[in-house]
């Protein structure tokens, strides 16, 4: 793949063949070498073939080979001539992460960490095929699809302050529950409040380092503080929505004229009936994911109360923020000095709006949107804040994690014969897991160096470092 170094952190893929725009990858010398080993640069170029793409086909430093879009890909499309692509959102629609702050310090929690972990593991359905505590009727699923977090809050799972600290308030406008297939709805009946498996997790962290005291203060973070990071998505319902619409788009007449290099990029014009139907269904699945994380957080609050014998007033478990990693959203961005309404696809990327943006919750508008970057379970995670560079260079986006560097097979080979849980425990991280192979696949070495990934977005100015978190205990599905 032809790639041209622009500076220490920017690499261009020149527009060739059917590419409508160039590609741009944010990475340093070390990361780009790792990226170049798989097919992800080709995928950046493939995305650049899509009709109506604006600016450049972008990729974040945590990027790796996905299907269709690369993981870590960002692409914006004109709302008249451009497309919406289910493969640009992914199967796990609104897979995302939320961070809960507490009033507790690590010294207070450390002696009870094993009890706390066991309680969380017992209370939160985890792993393959897990079923939630909520058993919804079909009409209730449709309410979740249209009202998102607000509906579960009304049922007693959390409070209204949580909604203000969730991207889109936990309910995306334009969602239509009626647009989902019977299969999708059926798969959503018993999965609200479940973590799932794979790379999904719940992690208890401590704030290890504060880089920006003013912003950390605005976010309610302090050194030594215990926080909870929750990563999950829309479960089987989201997978089904993606599957259903990919199938429909593959069969549309529009697609035949697009001449795309990968079938997984099957798309529809944003302005077409099919494109609008997919957007409404995707938004509904995104709402389901927000409701899912809201219920998981509520269960975690209950586990903390039980395990530590402390009330909510003492725990002060406040939602700092919840961000989506896999989503397409209508946003206004400045392109060549002109404000344009665009459909921004983030496939394994985080919105990172800078200070002053009207979509940033009022509590954070003076500093910018919290950007949450889970790393791996051995090393740590970051809290960043959206910066002005994101508004000029990446359609208000940043990275979403460390990004895989080892395949699952390679990770399992590397883990063979090792007692990973014991290794992590000796390093101060207690682990509870459902599947031994998941633990091996998700081992710390399977991921890139999160410090390096975050340094790139910090140096480019897409998001600035606020705090680094260090894991204390992790639940893996």
């Amino acid at each position: 793949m032809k790639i041209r170094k622009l500076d220490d952190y920017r690499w261009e893929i020149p527009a060739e063949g059917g590419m409508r725009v160039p590609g741009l990858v944010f990475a340093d010398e070390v990361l780009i070498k790792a990226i170049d080993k798989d097919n992800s640069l080709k995928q950046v170029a493939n995305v650049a073939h899509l009709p109506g793409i604006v600016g450049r086909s972008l990729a974040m430093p945590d990027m790796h080979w996905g299907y269709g879009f690369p993981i870590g890909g960002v692409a914006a499309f004109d709302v008249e001539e451009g497309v919406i692509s289910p493969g640009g959102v992914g199967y796990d629609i609104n897979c995302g992460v939320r961070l809960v702050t507490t009033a507790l310090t690590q010294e207070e929690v450390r002696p009870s960490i094993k009890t706390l972990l066991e309680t969380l593991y017992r209370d939160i359905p985890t792993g393959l095929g897990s079923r939630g505590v909520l058993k919804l009727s079909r009409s209730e699923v449709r309410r979740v699809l249209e009202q998102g977090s607000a509906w579960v809050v009304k049922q007693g799972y959390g409070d209204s302050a949580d909604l203000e600290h969730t991207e889109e308030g936990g309910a995306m406008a334009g969602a239509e529950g009626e647009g989902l297939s019977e299969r999708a709805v059926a798969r959503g009946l018993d999965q609200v409040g479940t973590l799932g498996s794979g790379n999904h997790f719940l992690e208890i962290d401590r704030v290890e380092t504060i880089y920006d005291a003013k912003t950390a203060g605005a976010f309610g973070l302090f050194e030594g503080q215990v926080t909870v990071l929750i990563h999950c998505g829309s479960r089987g319902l989201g997978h089904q929505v993606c599957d259903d619409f990919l199938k429909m788009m593959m069969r549309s007449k529009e697609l035949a004229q697009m001449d795309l290099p990968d079938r997984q990029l099957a798309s529809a014009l944003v302005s077409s009936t099919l494109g609008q139907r997919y957007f409404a269904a995707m938004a509904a699945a995104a709402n389901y994911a927000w409701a899912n994380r809201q219920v998981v957080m509520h269960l975690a609050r209950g586990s903390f109360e039980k395990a530590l014998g402390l009330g909510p007033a003492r725990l002060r478990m406040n939602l700092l923020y919840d961000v989506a990693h896999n989503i397409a959203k209508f946003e206004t961005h400045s392109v060549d000095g002109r404000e344009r309404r665009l459909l921004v696809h983030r496939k394994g990327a985080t919105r990172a709006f800078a200070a002053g943006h009207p979509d940033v919750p009022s509590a954070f508008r003076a500093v910018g949107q919290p950007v949450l970057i889970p790393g791996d379970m051995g090393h740590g995670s970051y809290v960043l804040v959206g910066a002005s560079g994101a508004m000029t260079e990446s359609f208000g986006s940043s990275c979403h994690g460390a990004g895989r560097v080892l395949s699952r097979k390679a990770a399992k080979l590397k883990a063979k014969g090792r007692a990973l849980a014991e290794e992590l425990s000796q390093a101060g991280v207690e682990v509870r897991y459902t599947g031994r192979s998941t633990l091996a696949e998700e081992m710390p070495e399977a991921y890139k160096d999160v410090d390096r990934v975050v340094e790139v977005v910090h140096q480019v100015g897409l998001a600035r470092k606020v705090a680094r978190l260090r894991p204390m205990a992790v639940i893996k599905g």
Partner: protein
Amino acid sequence: MRRYRLIDHTADMGMYLYGRDPKQVFISGAAVLFELLVEGRRQGPGKWEALALDGLDRQDLLVQWLGELLYIYSARGQVLTGARVQRLTRTRIEAEIGLTAFDAAHHKRRTEIKAVTYHQAEFKRHGAGWRARVIFDV
């Protein structure tokens, strides 16, 4: 003849499926999918049900076939015990699939596969037989 070879994909999982004819590729794909999904006894008795699917071409048909079997497992909780392909054209498969309910006493869930993707999907002649490629989202 080898039935399959796993593809080392960074985040997901892929496989090459082999068969002396397209029918065998479809049957191998079904068996390998369930080897990845479930550990434990997958033999009968179970019950048989008919499954007919239409695709745009062989690649699409294979994605549909594996996707439907994945749905039967993920959403209906049924484990495949066998597959008989009665009729196969480039765009249609008519088959009978043997199913038994997932039972934690006999089965253990192995890998979560979210979906069968179209990414790099292929289905073509390979030496004296046929080879297909599919990538799963895991």
